[in-house]
């Protein structure tokens, strides 16, 4: 025992062996991995069940996008785009406490900028497309930075109104400008083949999935970093954050710029899917959707926007497709509720109910409930 090595081997640190890395990783991420795995096989699974090829149907010499699998691919591509938009909004609103009513500005810029570059720039479509994506990243980050700088002067609701004004201005311009083809919107038909949803939708699906996963990971990484902890401090109490020594503007800018770029990328995906960029992309509807879905899913939670987007989108799809008709005859009044026609009313009612039942959003309320049950369990164990 006079060997130093032997003495050290007796210390408790050596007796305790942490579980292997992969097991820690699996325990923390099994749900994430499961969801990604399901999304990867989904088009093929649907194709296998329904007998429709995930690559579309062959009609003579052409392949057309028909059948169940490609139909669901389009729905999921739209969901990926919306989920990224909502997640980016949540980074700003839910984690940093910056309220913007003009987030669709970046979404629309994504669709329009790529559209304009591929339609008007007469080069190889691959080059044009990549240049378009880079241009979107460039414009959205610069614009996000400029708008973010104004948050120094404008706080809270004033900042929100300012962003609304900018986005509405862009919406008006896009609807009347010749370059953007006015109200009709800009048709995007010069996309390279590999990303054309009418020719290789499965590829667009996987690109959308990759964007979705990347955005989730980037935001997750960001909010768990030291700088991300400051985001939440700013949301809670910006003056306090300043008093303990944070230059809060710097952190708000980081959050706003990342959110803007992600919204721009989501807009590109939407533009590709629709093969057009229309003024609606810049409209307040998308911002409000992002805001409401964030609230429904859980403000300031990572999973909230994803759960909210998926839940709401699939619900809307089901309600619009359903043939449920409720009739109520009260003699004088006859009240009829046709689900597929009055879908927006049904969604509205669901919204209200969800907000009432889950005051912190679906995911947020679940977390709180879990924490409270855990607390109660701990206390029970401590007393007995």
């Amino acid at each position: 025992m006079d060997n130093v090595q032997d003495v050290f081997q007796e210390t408790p640190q050596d007796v305790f062996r942490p579980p292997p890395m992969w097991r820690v990783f699996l325990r923390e991420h099994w749900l994430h991995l499961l969801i990604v795995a399901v999304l990867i096989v989904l088009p093929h699974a649907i194709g296998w069940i329904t007998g429709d090829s995930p690559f579309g149907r062959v009609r003579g010499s052409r392949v057309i996008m028909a059948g169940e699998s490609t139909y669901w691919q389009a729905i999921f591509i739209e969901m990926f785009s919306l989920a990224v938009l909502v997640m980016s909004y949540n980074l700003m609103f839910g984690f940093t406490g910056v309220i913007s009513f003009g987030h669709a500005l970046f979404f629309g810029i994504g669709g329009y900028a790529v559209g304009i570059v591929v339609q008007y720039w007469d080069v190889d479509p691959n080059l044009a497309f990549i240049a378009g994506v880079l241009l979107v990243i460039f414009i959205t980050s610069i614009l996000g930075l400029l708008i973010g700088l104004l948050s120094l002067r404008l706080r809270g609701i004033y900042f929100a109104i300012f962003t609304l004004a900018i986005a509405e201005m862009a919406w008006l311009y896009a609807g009347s400008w010749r370059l953007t083809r006015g109200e009709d919107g800009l048709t995007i038909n010069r996309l390279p083949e590999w990303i054309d949803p009418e020719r290789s939708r499965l590829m667009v699906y996987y690109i959308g999935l990759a964007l979705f996963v990347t955005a989730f990971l980037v935001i997750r990484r960001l909010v768990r970093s030291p700088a991300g902890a400051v985001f939440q401090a700013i949301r809670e109490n910006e003056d306090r954050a300043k008093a303990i020594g944070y230059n809060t503007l710097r952190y708000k800018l980081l959050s706003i710029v990342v959110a803007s770029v992600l919204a721009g990328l989501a807009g590109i995906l939407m533009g590709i899917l629709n093969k057009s960029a229309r003024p609606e992309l810049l409209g307040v509807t998308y911002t409000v959707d992002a805001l409401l879905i964030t609230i429904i899913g859980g403000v300031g939670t990572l999973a909230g926007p994803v759960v909210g987007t998926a839940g709401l989108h699939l619900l809307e799809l089901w309600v619009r497709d359903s043939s449920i008709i409720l009739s109520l005859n009260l003699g004088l009044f006859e009240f009829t509720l046709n689900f597929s026609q009055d879908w927006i009313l049904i969604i509205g009612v669901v919204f209200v109910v969800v907000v009432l039942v889950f005051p912190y959003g679906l995911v947020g309320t679940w977390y709180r409930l879990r924490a409270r049950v855990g607390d109660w369990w701990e206390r029970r164990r401590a007393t007995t």
Partner: protein
Amino acid sequence: MTDIILQSHSLRKEFGALVAVDDVDMSIRQNTLHSIIGPNGAGKTTFFNLLSGKYKPTGGRVMFKGQDITDMPFHRRAHMGIGRSFQITNIFPNLTILENVRLAAQAVSPQAFNFWGTVVHHKDLIDRAMHVLDIVGLAGDSLRLASVLPHGDKRKLELAILLAPDPDVLLLDEPTAGMASEQVPEIIGTIDNISKAHDKTVVMVEHNMSVVMGISDVITVMDQGRLLAEGTPSEIANNKTVQDVYLGRLYGDADELIGKDA
């Protein structure tokens, strides 16, 4: 012990026609507990806000360790080693108690703008936060949300937030404001402990007279924006002008203040 750490030179603040702080010269020595008292409207909170950087003075200078900090922005002062509290309780309500303090420790660390690492991997900051929570006696509750704490403990949490970056000077704005009187001795004991056992300079604006008399090394009395008197607690208690102008209005006998009858 007698080094001057914080100093004001003819510091002045006007709000329109009102002169809230009228050419005040004050020196605060290192490792002392220096209280500023005065009746309502004496300008003590304004003076405090000039020291902390919340207000820009109309005239005069603020020196910290011989460096002019008059025009230094709010957040930079924390990096210099000045921590300040607020009159109203000011914490991050929906974060855990540990996170409240950890954020304050992170603010002055090189990790502050790190956006790629993970918070839990910077164990030094967590250790620092736990150490400070231990000093104020909140370590046992570290994982609860700050919003669930009773008011007295919230003020202790504020002290922990101030202490976390290991500042040289603590500026406390009415640390006993809004507290039930039975909680006051506890928080005062904590402040006393911080200043004496942990070698901090504490500058405290206070309303509660008995609190100040018990623990201060130096007391400055302000009235109508000016310095009225400065000295040890017993000097202040026996100062005729102070008795007339301020103490006399509140207390009949100055002896009561220094606790001779207790």
